[in-house]
């Protein structure tokens, strides 16, 4: 999943935003925020609207074409790079406590996602061990994501081992 920010120019008329939202929804995108920049009206009276969303990375181009296809001006779009990355370890009944829900708690934030995971399950019904790599749009957001994961783990009685949050020494 990628986080994408798209700036479109919409006529100041009812129903315009819906034309942008429809293809996003159809392609499985998840809208994170919509900001109308009314103070930045174009000379032709259009309003720039910035839509941030989460979508399968492979569908970004298709989405842009679909929006252009309904005669909306796409002024710019860019994938938001995930800037901060860290590893956290989980030990416990990771699989039996709904692993996808655990991962989803990070992915659905829109600002962070689980980008890699290595899980070891040596014996049935015994605790598993997983190393999860989380990326976020910035350091502060990464901290927020880890805090979120901490709460999920507390609820599921999973031991979470955090990295020493350290600048390089």
């Amino acid at each position, binding site marked *: 999943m990628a986080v994408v920010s798209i700036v479109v120019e919409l006529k100041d008329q009812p129903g315009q935003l819906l034309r942008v939202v429809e293809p996003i929804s159809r392609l499985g995108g998840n809208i994170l925020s919509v900001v109308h920049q009314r103070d930045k009206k174009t000379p032709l009276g259009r309003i720039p609207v910035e839509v941030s969303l989460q979508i399968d990375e492979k569908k970004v181009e298709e989405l842009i074409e679909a929006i252009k296809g309904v005669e909306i001006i796409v002024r710019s779009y860019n994938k938001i790079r995930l800037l901060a990355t860290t*590893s*956290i*370890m989980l*030990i*416990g009944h990771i699989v039996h406590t709904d692993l996808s829900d655990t991962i989803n708690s990070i992915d659905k934030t829109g600002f962070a996602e689980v980008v890699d995971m*290595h899980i*070891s399950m*040596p014996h049935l019904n015994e*605790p598993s*061990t*997983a*190393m999860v*790599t989380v990326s976020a749009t910035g350091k502060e957001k990464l901290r927020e994501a880890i805090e979120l994961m901490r709460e999920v783990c507390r609820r599921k009685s999973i*031991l979470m*081992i*955090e*990295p*020493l949050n*350290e600048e390089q*020494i």
Partner: protein
Amino acid sequence: MIKIAILGFGAVGQGVAEILADRERIERWIGRYEVVAVADSKGSIYSEDGISLKNAIEAKKMGNLPEGKSTMEIIEEMDFDVAIEATPTNIDTGEPGLTHIKACLNKGSHVITSNKGPLVVAYRELAEIAERKKVRLAFEATIGGAMPLIKLAKRDLAGNEITSIKGILNGTCNYILSRMEQERLSYNQILGEAKELRIAEANVSYDVEGIDSAAKLVILANAVMGMNATFSDVEIVGITSITPEAFEIAMEKGYTIRLIAEASREGLRVSPRLVPLHHPLAVRGTFNAVLIQTDLAKEVFVIGRGAGKIETASAIISDLIDIYGDRTY
């Protein structure tokens, strides 16, 4: 002439007595001194003119100290300048050390202690009594055994604001984790080995559940970071549920696992953490290690032996010399 009372005569108290018996070593620093009393919970040896430390150590080796004055009677009835309080730690009540230390400070004696309990329970109160009575309360031996930490932070880093302290404060846990890292054996297998080597005591929960580390962290936070923390402020997670695979998987990303006690503005916590393999805190064996972060000096790292009879006694002796020694060195 400095008059010393040793209260508590277990391994640490005896270690102090052994070093003090070496007058040549100690008098160079503090001049003439006598130990006027040695006491434990069962008995005591005392004399206003000074006792023979050798006899006291011998008596303890043979069994108990002879019945005599109780520790409190010694504190109340005898004249001494400095008490070395080395009774066993109780972090719930601080006793019996708390009562001993209060009584000694109140009568105007300096106190040097290796006992974490009284400081965890009542650091603020004890520090205030010491200040009011114009005597010293020294406790280098409570944290990290021989590793210099309290005086390092308070004196050598004077003028700095300490922004965080992160460290390994329990050698037993570090031994278990670093052996799990090397051997990829289970926690219980390595715990058995540690018990056989007498690195872990029979009742190991105090160590492996992070309680010992948390107690030391509270003392550090209060004494060198100016916090007003209590034991219940520490978020504690121990090491008992760490799997052998954890080290293998962590290693692939360049990490190992250590039990880290951390004090910062965000709070106090003791928990297993992923530590980069090249990080100074990724030490092995029974070592203790602490990384102090300050605003001016930035990072300062200390490593040393966190336990042991003579090692801990060394910290007590350093406090004694700090109180009485010639500061012109």
